[in-house]
């Protein structure tokens, strides 16, 4: 196995293990998306126009919340990098023959894995609330792929920013600045058809929306796989772009030492 994959694997294990030791983190990771799902699901359940063809608003909302959760998780994942920088763990790896790429990629992969686990929990709770994944097994795969990719796109971005700014306060400000606007410029909560024209035009370029479209097709429509595939492909490209950005900022960090 190439060195970069081996090292990425070990570093993902390290980060995952560290997170598993934070009971509060696990609780928040599981409960928060459920709160979104139940709260928004109830809040908008009486507005039939919102659900855009789905048999219930919860069914419409579930893939949206899966994506929202994935991209929020990704946006915040740079905090782990800040922590490793602050604790000088990154410098220790740099003075050892650790794969440079793995130091960055492991954060991105870990964000993707976390998002997939959360997506599975959300989908199971959705099923209990009467949601049907119309796309069947393939539908599940598309939803999980969309959540993994969204988390990775934004994790690449977040880690890039973390390596550029290297301060927790700046990182938090950036995550907030990026997170909420992108959420409201997407069809997470309501279908694109109901958006004002200018918002729906912007939303077309919003990676969050690519994920939501792919996932919602898989759950609500259970077809139109070509479109889903296209959006997933966009997300793959976006992941490559933001990971490249993070790798580039990592080089700039190395030069600054």
């Amino acid at each position: 196995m190439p060195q970069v994959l081996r090292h990425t694997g070990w570093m993902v294990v390290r980060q995952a293990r560290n997170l598993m030791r934070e009971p509060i983190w696990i609780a928040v990771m599981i409960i928060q998306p459920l709160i979104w799902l139940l709260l928004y699901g109830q809040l908008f359940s009486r507005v039939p126009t919102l659900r855009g063809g789905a048999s219930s608003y919860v069914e419409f909302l579930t893939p949206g919340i899966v994506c929202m959760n994935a991209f929020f998780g990704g946006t915040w994942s740079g905090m782990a990098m800040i922590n490793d920088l602050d604790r000088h763990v990154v410098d220790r790896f740099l003075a050892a023959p650790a794969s440079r790429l793995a130091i960055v990629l492991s954060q991105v992969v870990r964000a993707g894995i976390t998002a997939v686990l959360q997506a599975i929990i959300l989908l199971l709770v959705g099923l209990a609330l009467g949601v049907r994944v119309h796309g069947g097994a393939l539908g599940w795969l598309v939803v999980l792929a969309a959540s993994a990719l969204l988390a990775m796109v934004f994790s690449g971005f977040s880690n890039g920013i973390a390596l550029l700014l290297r301060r927790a306060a700046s990182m938090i400000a950036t995550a907030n600045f990026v997170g909420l606007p992108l959420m409201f410029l997407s069809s997470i909560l309501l279908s694109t058809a109901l958006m004002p024209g200018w918002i729906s035009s912007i939303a077309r370029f919003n990676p969050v929306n690519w994920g939501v479209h792919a996932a919602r097709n898989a759950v609500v429509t259970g077809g139109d796989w070509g479109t889903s595939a296209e959006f997933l492909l966009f997300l793959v490209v976006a992941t490559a772009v933001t990971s490249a950005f993070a790798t580039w900022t990592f080089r700039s960090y190395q030069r600054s030492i």
Partner: protein
Amino acid sequence: MDAIVAENLTKRYKTVQALDGVSFSVRDGEVFALLGPNGAGKSTTVRVLTTLTRPDSGRAFVGGEDVVAHPNRVRHTIGYVAQDSGVDWEATGRENMLLQGRIHGMAGAPLKKRVEELLELIGLTDAADRIARGYSGGMKRRLDVAIGLVHKPRVLFLDEPTTGLDPEARAAMWVEVERLTRQESLTILLTTHYLEEADRLAERVAIVSRGKIVVEGTPEALKAGLRGESVSVELRETDGRLQEAVQVVEQVDGAGEVHLEGQVVRARVPNGAQAIPSILLALEGRGFPVVAVTTARPSLDDVYLHYTGRDFTAEDTEHTPAAQGWGH
């Protein structure tokens, strides 16, 4: 070739010339100390030698490999204990060491055995499976050293290994380092701003000041190079006439490097017993009330003052407003 060779290293950070032509070499199996106040360029030197930083100019070899041309080969041969602990706080001591070993290409039973051996050596066996967050400062520091040693490096870099430790933990650390040098047959490059640390641990010392090495040698040779003894005369209230006292002492035959430290006038003389009466006579003749007189063999403080023309303590605090005092 020597274990470490640095040739004319320079490095500039924006407005600061951190290294201004640093050259030295460390022989195989030797403990070598870079001694100097904060901001002198010790850590930058170490960062160049551990491949973290590229020098602007100059060359350096560690374990025979060029740090710029073949950084990854260098990384395989060195252990690096940074000034700031690199311990992963959420992992246990053992997990920290295992991951570092894997990064160095170790695996399976040999890695496990090596980790056990080091935990034993560094006295962390009982704490090995506890999360490092709960370790004391001294324990974290010892874990740092153990992490740096997992892959049996030829050369170990210890950047300020005892800064921030309380005196007890510092003394314990010194014992560890001494034991390691005996058991692991290592070449060690140590940086410190504690004179007594360099004196105690290092076979050879290089004094670093403002990005340059001003002198190097064994602590004994450096001290012996300063012939004579130092005399300290403490004065009572002088109504701002301290500078005059300095001038008075300078007039005394044989007295050199006269300077002030608070209320104390210090000078170097060829022979303390002969010089003290004349110094006292001169001072009292001009009405300076003397509280106490002491004489001492030269210390590394004196060596530092002699070669840099600056007082070590003053220069150290100049760079770190919150610097802790170092004891004599």
